[in-house]
């Protein structure tokens, strides 16, 4: 990996170099909550001053830019009894993500494993993923962040450029030729030992700030053992089966497919809609049988998929520890508490 160091004052130049030719998505302030605290969202940004690089985790991930909630998989035009099918991946230009945190970059890395791997890469995702330019920034751990437990507190890959603040300078990690070229346009130098020390100090400082944690030791086994544990039922009693947790999760990718005909009968569409395993009919099949009729069985499945099944298949969890699901859940269901209760530490 190549490294550079540059003054924070150079960043706007870098930003405008990107906005000059590309759509840039970055964190901006989206409002103020009932406690008077600002909250943030990933939105298209053209003005560096509108960016909030010191943002706390956005309420919604950047997912909608690469896994939209609704996306046409195919359109059909008919003539008589014949039809023709058109498949479009809905991407025609590269897009810049400016200011993703490590957890959100790791979310992409995890999604890559399932969506771009296997015999059938998922083209709508893969096409967008291939056309992303990602500038990561370091973050300030929040009370709900447990990314460190999930090993997602630093990003080792999956970005082009990653910036860590060291005093009034940035320590930049470069992973792509594009990023390398970009940095050539500003005053950036190779770091020396002094900067390395500063970088390590910044990272150690950040690490010290984590408060939430999840014990993942033997977790897959424990989940299997506790499949019938009564704690699931008590979480299930709280769960609203609303699927908000999946909607805000940077890695939830389950979907449903709908075929529709436009009201003027001109085209038919096959549309993918992101779904959530917490929704009541997620596992319902023809004939009306539902494999997970109770809310606790669905909630349990969500945890199994993330913390057991995915680990089995890809040797890492599908959770990045961003804490969004716990923050959004009105019923207060969150990963650290649920896992602790399953481990027999603290009740539901």
């Amino acid at each position, binding site marked *: 990996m190549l490294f550079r160091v540059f003054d924070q004052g150079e960043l706007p130049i870098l930003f405008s170099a990107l906005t000059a030719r590309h759509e840039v998505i970055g964190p901006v302030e989206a409002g103020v909550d009932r406690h008077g605290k600002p909250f943030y969202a990933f939105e298209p940004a053209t003005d560096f001053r509108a960016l909030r690089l010191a943002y706390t985790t956005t309420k919604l991930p950047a997912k909608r830019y690469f896994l939209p909630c609704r996306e046409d998989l195919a359109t059909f035009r008919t003539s008589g009894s014949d039809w023709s099918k058109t498949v479009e991946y809905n991407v025609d230009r590269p897009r810049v993500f400016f200011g993703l945190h490590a957890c959100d970059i790791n979310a992409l890395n995890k999604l890559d494993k399932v969506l771009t791997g296997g015999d059938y890469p998922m083209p709508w995702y893969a096409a967008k993923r291939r056309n992303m330019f990602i500038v990561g920034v370091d973050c300030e751990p929040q009370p709900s962040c447990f990314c460190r437990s999930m090993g997602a507190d630093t990003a080792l890959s999956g970005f082009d450029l990653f910036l860590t603040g060291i005093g009034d300078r940035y320590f930049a990690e470069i992973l792509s030729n594009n990023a390398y070229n970009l940095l050539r346009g500003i005053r950036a130098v190779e770091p020396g030992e002094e900067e390395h020390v500063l970088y390590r100090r910044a990272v150690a400082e950040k690490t010290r700030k984590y408060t939430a944690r999840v014990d993942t030791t033997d977790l897959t086994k424990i989940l299997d053992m506790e499949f019938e544990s009564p704690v699931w039922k008590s979480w299930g009693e709280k769960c609203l089966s609303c699927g908000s947790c999946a909607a805000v999760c940077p890695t939830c990718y389950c979907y449903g497919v709908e075929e529709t005909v436009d009201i003027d009968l001109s085209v038919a569409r096959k549309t993918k809609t992101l779904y959530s395993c917490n929704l009541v009919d997620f596992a319902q099949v023809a004939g009306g049988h539902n494999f997970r009729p109770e809310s606790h069985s669905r909630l349990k499945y969500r945890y*199994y998929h993330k913390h057991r099944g995915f680990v089995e298949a890809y040797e890492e969890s599908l959770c990045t520890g961003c804490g969004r699901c716990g923050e959004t859940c009105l019923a207060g269901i969150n990963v650290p508490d649920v896992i602790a209760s399953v481990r027999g530490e603290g009740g539901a």
Partner: protein
Amino acid sequence: MTRERTPDMEIPFVDVAGSPFRPPRRNDFAAFEYTYKAEVTRVHTLTAMETLYEIQLLDPEERRRFSFSPGQFVMLEVPGIGEAPFSISSSPLRRGAVELCIRKAGSLTTYLTKVPRGIRVGIRGPFGTAFPMERMHGENVLLIAGGLGLAPLRSAICYVQENRSRFQAVDIVYGAKEPSQLLFSYMYEAWRQDDIDLSIIVEKAGPLWKGPRGLITKRLKEILADRDHAECARNMYAIVCGPPVMFQYVCDQLNVYGIPMQKMFVSLERRMHCGMGKCCRCNVGSTYTCLKGPVFDYWTVLNLPEAI
């Protein structure tokens, strides 16, 4: 030091254009939503609820390349109406055509009952695991179906018929609710002629029904009663297709007769939208039924929480 104050940053676009309707390579983007265009060439009403559709790919080249194994399924699509997974019911020897035995259950399946022959449909697949027929060569085979379970099983039966000499004793045990719900009745004679022992049992029947009545397990007990357990353990395979409650009972019973659970195969049904391990809808516990299944050996099923 000189430097450009406004660096020019053009990120090259990585072309991702798909090419539907050209033969896909694996790992190719176009493979995902690749649809074989096909035609419904025959419609055969089996019962009040089930119909058999013969579906042929239109493109001769594709017809040649399309092949499958018993137990696999395809996604059948009618534009604008729906897409759903169906087990292939026909012989794997027939290239470029499949027969699907479809029960009226919702949008697509009801629509199909009303369309004329000749309608153009789309087929994706074949997907999923198959019954390991070759592994069964030289052995006794028990083919057990309850209700619509005969649909996937029939493909295996075709295979057995076509390769009859490679198998020892072959038994089909088929159970249904009532005689009017029996599927593929026009085939029974042919099966028997191929030296396949066929027993049919129904739960309820009028006075005209001459055959046995009761649950499938009852009939099974009768068949297995005089077999030697050690023998069964050594040279018997079973394929069990039907609703989960049924295959659970049957498999547990077979286990009592000594057949190892790894030699019993069942087909799981789940909701599926992609067939390629992406949509997550078919997950059992956290196993993709569409990739690791639908055919599983019973031991694996036992180890899948919430499979049954």
